[in-house]
């Protein structure tokens, strides 16, 4: 009974984490790179229409994801089925996926805007996307780990 309940709550933990991670990285992107550093531009003359549409949808979705992710977290905690490790892993995974999408598709293919202007942007691109890839790998590793110590305790030596 206890076991079945846990396995049902796993997707919930993962979705909550992924959505929150995605929203968080979009928020950091806006605050740090747009507002504080002024590296990113609000609009770049080379932006394609599809880039503008993609940016708009992701912008809206990331706000929604942050809020839904946090409400789901509150729900998981209220039901006392929060798997912290898996949740954090999912959040890092979500953040990495968005950063990679932003770095490869939006910055490079759709030319939404570049990471920074008046510099050799290739190094920035490499660092940006390597960090994204690392986050995806770390996230997957954390999510895939079979059981957290908490569960082992509950299930004895099994």
């Amino acid at each position, binding site marked *: 009974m206890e076991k079945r309940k846990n396995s049902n709550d796993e997707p919930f933990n993962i979705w909550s984490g992924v959505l929150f991670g995605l929203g968080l990285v979009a928020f950091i992107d806006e605050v740090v790179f747009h507002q504080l550093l002024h590296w990113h531009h*609000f*609009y770049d*003359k080379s*932006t394609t229409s599809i880039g*503008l*549409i993609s*940016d*708009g*949808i992701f*912008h*809206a*979705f990331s*706000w*929604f994801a942050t*809020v*839904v992710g946090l*409400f*789901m977290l*509150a*729900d998981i905690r*209220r*039901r006392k089925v929060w798997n912290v490790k898996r949740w954090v892993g999912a959040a890092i995974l979500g953040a990495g996926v968005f950063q990679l999408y932003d770095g490869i598709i939006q910055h490079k293919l759709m030319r939404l805007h570049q990471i920074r202007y008046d510099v050799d942007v290739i190094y920035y691109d490499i660092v940006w996307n390597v960090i994204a890839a690392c986050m995806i790998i770390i996230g997957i590793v954390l999510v895939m780990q079979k059981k957290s110590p908490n569960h082992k305790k509950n299930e004895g030596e099994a």
Partner: protein
Amino acid sequence: MHHHNHGNGFLDILLYILLIVLIVGYLVLVYGTNKKYKEWPMIRCVFWIIGIAAVFLGIAGPIAERAHASFQAHMMTHLLLGMLGPLLLVLSAPMSLLLRSVPVTWGRILSKVLKSFYVRWITHPIIASILNAGGLWILYTTDLYHSMQSSNLLHVFVHVHVFLAGYVFTLSMIYIEVTPHRTSFQLRAIVLILAMAAHSILSKWIYANPPLGVEATDAQLGGMLMYYGGDAIDLVIVILLCAQYFKGKKRAVEGRVYTVAKTSEG
């Protein structure tokens, strides 16, 4: 350009009278019905007063005056009139207040109207979003914005539309008022995301393509105000929508637990 400022004294006085009537009227209804029914939440009165003030600031007063010459000020009036005002007014639930104030026969007629096909159609999230976002796209990507500046009739029409569309849109997303026709959380979530996307895409479009008769820097400032101002108000709608959904979910889960406990007892 300045013909709006002349001969508007009479109209302004009428508007201020309307402002006072609306605020006092709401408070009188609250006071009158509190004796008969459950006490009306005080916070709704606050929402109503600030909401009405926001709408009136959008059509009269210093910001609206400046809006004739400045696109940025114009955008501020639209945020007040089409987003902040409607949100606060929806939160103050005037329709529910009216329903508990009027005699039963009037109430029946009113609820019949609310349940009519037309109201059901217009408060559907998809229709309301198209009316809201679509109207703005037409206003700023065609010459309508320019034509509006030289026609009083068009000016009034656009502003009435912006307010009504914003109000109906907010009404279709969060259920605080009497809402006979409800749609699923999932549908509203998707439509809200798309409407927010349409809003931010349009604001960046304006940034890059100034409407006819608007200077480039003015359009950039206005576009950014639309982008970030819209975000702030949309975020409140997102939070309210999710809060209502998860509150309902919690109740459903507790209900189920209760049923399970009861059946296992028996």
